[in-house]
């Protein structure tokens, strides 16, 4: 599949009283057409900020300080954040769904008003056509009785239903890329499964690509074709889903997989926690950020700066000096 989006060396910083937080510190990745990509990491690793930066939705004290976002041959970062070009991309060609369906809908507008707004703005539909399309979209995402429910307010909807509305909204202008930031984290397990399955079908239907931003390794194992693992503002491992789970090579990925309980594990399996805590992103040392928690570290790790992403296989990259293939505890 041809490439759709390429992000090169993206950097986003937040100036705070205690120092500069380098939330995203040189992130590069790409997304192909009609692909489902997973972006995995713990809270504070920069996974959400990297996506918000692509959309130029970073507000003060945050600032995108470097890099480029190439989308259909254009560098999105060359557009002004509030300029007409960026507004034509945002929502229309790259859309985003947020974690909290409770807070990301406007409580004083009806679902219909919020859904049709984008159709009128981006697709220049008239009110009647937009309403018709909104009902269609709501039906597609599995909201029954959409003709009636379109005039309801967000508080009439359950959490799962609100997230369905968000997905309908995200897909309303046939975007090329849908970014879903922890789309199902706040929801119940069976609702999560419903929504993820529906999202997978929908992006297929609309021939869009999907970026799933999550901390849940299970979700990406089930849905993503390729995965990026993030830690402390950088991508530490990337590869196909089968490579990442079948032959994880970065110590952080290996650690993550050992510390989550699996539904199908043998009785008496012990979890191996990753020692220590994620680092504070202010005043990071030049060496590998995972070094203090790493069980594979070698002398070189202390002397040399954090390495670049280096290939260990076709399409499988890690940011690490150590040879993790040998089992070592």
């Amino acid at each position: 599949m041809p490439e759709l989006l390429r992000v090169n060396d993206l950097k986003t910083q937040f100036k705070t009283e205690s120092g500069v937080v380098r939330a995203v510190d040189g992130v590069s990745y790409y997304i192909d057409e009609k692909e489902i990509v997973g972006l995995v990491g713990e809270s504070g690793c920069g996974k959400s900020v990297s996506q918000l930066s692509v959309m130029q939705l970073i507000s003060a004290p945050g600032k995108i300080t470097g890099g480029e976002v190439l989308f259909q041959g254009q560098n999105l970062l060359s557009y002004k954040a509030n300029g007409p070009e960026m507004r034509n991309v945002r929502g229309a060609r790259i859309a985003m769904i947020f974690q909290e369906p409770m807070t990301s809908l406007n409580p004083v507008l009806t679902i219909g008003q919020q859904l049709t707004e984008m159709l009128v703005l981006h697709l220049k539909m008239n009110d009647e056509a937009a309403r018709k399309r909104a009902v269609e979209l709501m039906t597609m995402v599995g909201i029954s009785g959409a003709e009636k429910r379109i005039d309801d307010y967000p508080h009439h909807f359950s959490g799962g239903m609100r997230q369905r509305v968000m997905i309908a909204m995200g897909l309303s202008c046939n975007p090329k890329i849908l970014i879903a930031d922890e789309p199902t984290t706040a929801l119940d397990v069976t609702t999560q499964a419903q929504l993820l399955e529906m999202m997978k079908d929908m992006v297929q239907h609309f021939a869009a690509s999907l970026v799933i931003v999550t901390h849940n390794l299970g979700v990406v194992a089930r849905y993503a074709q390729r995965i990026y693992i993030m830690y402390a503002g950088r991508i530490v491992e990337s590869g196909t889903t089968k490579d990442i789970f079948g032959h994880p090579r970065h110590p952080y990925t290996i650690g993550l997989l050992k510390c989550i309980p699996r539904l199908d594990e043998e009785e008496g399996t012990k979890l191996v926690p990753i020692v220590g805590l994620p680092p504070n992103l202010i005043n990071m040392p030049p060496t590998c950020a995972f070094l203090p928690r790493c069980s594979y570290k070698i002398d070189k790790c202390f002397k040399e700066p954090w390495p670049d992403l280096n290939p260990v296989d076709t399409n499988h990259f890690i940011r690490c000096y150590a040879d993790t293939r040998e089992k070592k505890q």
Partner: protein
Amino acid sequence: MNQVHDDVLLNVSDLKMYFPVTRGLLRRKVADVKAVDGVSFKLKKDETLGLVGESGCGKTTIGRCVLGLYRPTAGKVLFQEKDIAALPEKKLRDIRRSMALIFQDPYSSLDPRQSAGSIVGEPLKIHHMVFNKGEYREKVEQLFRIVGLDPGMSDRFPHEFSGGQRQRIGVARALACDPALIVCDEPISALDVSIQAQIINLLEELQDSVKGLSYLFIAHDLSVVRHISDRVAVMYLGHIMEICKSRVLYENPLHPYTRALLSAVPIADPFVEETRERIILKGEVPSPMNPPPGCAFHPRCFMAIPECSQAVPPLRTITEGHEVACIRV
């Protein structure tokens, strides 16, 4: 005393907890929320029973009834052979010494103005477990060490600790009075993935080292519950749908809801995911204010027959230790 019941710590029988819904100026009761509607289970000494289910299934309410924080509408909660549900408030306090609670949110469950040491030591004072200052200090230090915290940090305040450390403080507080039962209500769901394993392992190690410590482990995450529990009770809308050994839960789930719930939890392994049964339930969990007649699950069930809406199916023993509330099994 009967020999057979000797090792039963907690015996809950036909527990019902209804919350009245009132309307209008006179606060007239218009309905009941049947949070827990006829639940029976036993918890043995040294055992961990997992209560799992989606939001609103009544798992937290059960925990609170067990601790005597709610007066149940009906039913018995026998803890060490005494009925918690019928004891007067004064007597409850003595019994509460033998039980403790670990909360979900380590950020809001600790008093921000109290030092960590005094949080951990407060139960000792309340229950008159120590007789002088030296003994108190010694016991607090010991508790800090048990949960893996440096006793030197006991003068610090909660905001100076990380999430994982705060939850360790919560565990230390729970252990202060040498309880026989700890109710863990979503103890790890607010923590980061790499920290969760630390707390799970701590809870497991404690149970191995403290004799006669039982956990009632309440969580929505099936993989975590299965990992830590000896037996698991799957709940739906105030009822236990299935109760069995954790191993059996994954290998041989019988209730259609359990099967759907299991299939909704993705396993972090794309190779396993390819071969798994995928059951996507329709609709959402109904309101406990207006539960469906008969089996609470029948409107969403893929195995339902007309008889399912006639009567609430009782828990039936299928094999030794494996009970299911379904007429189709």
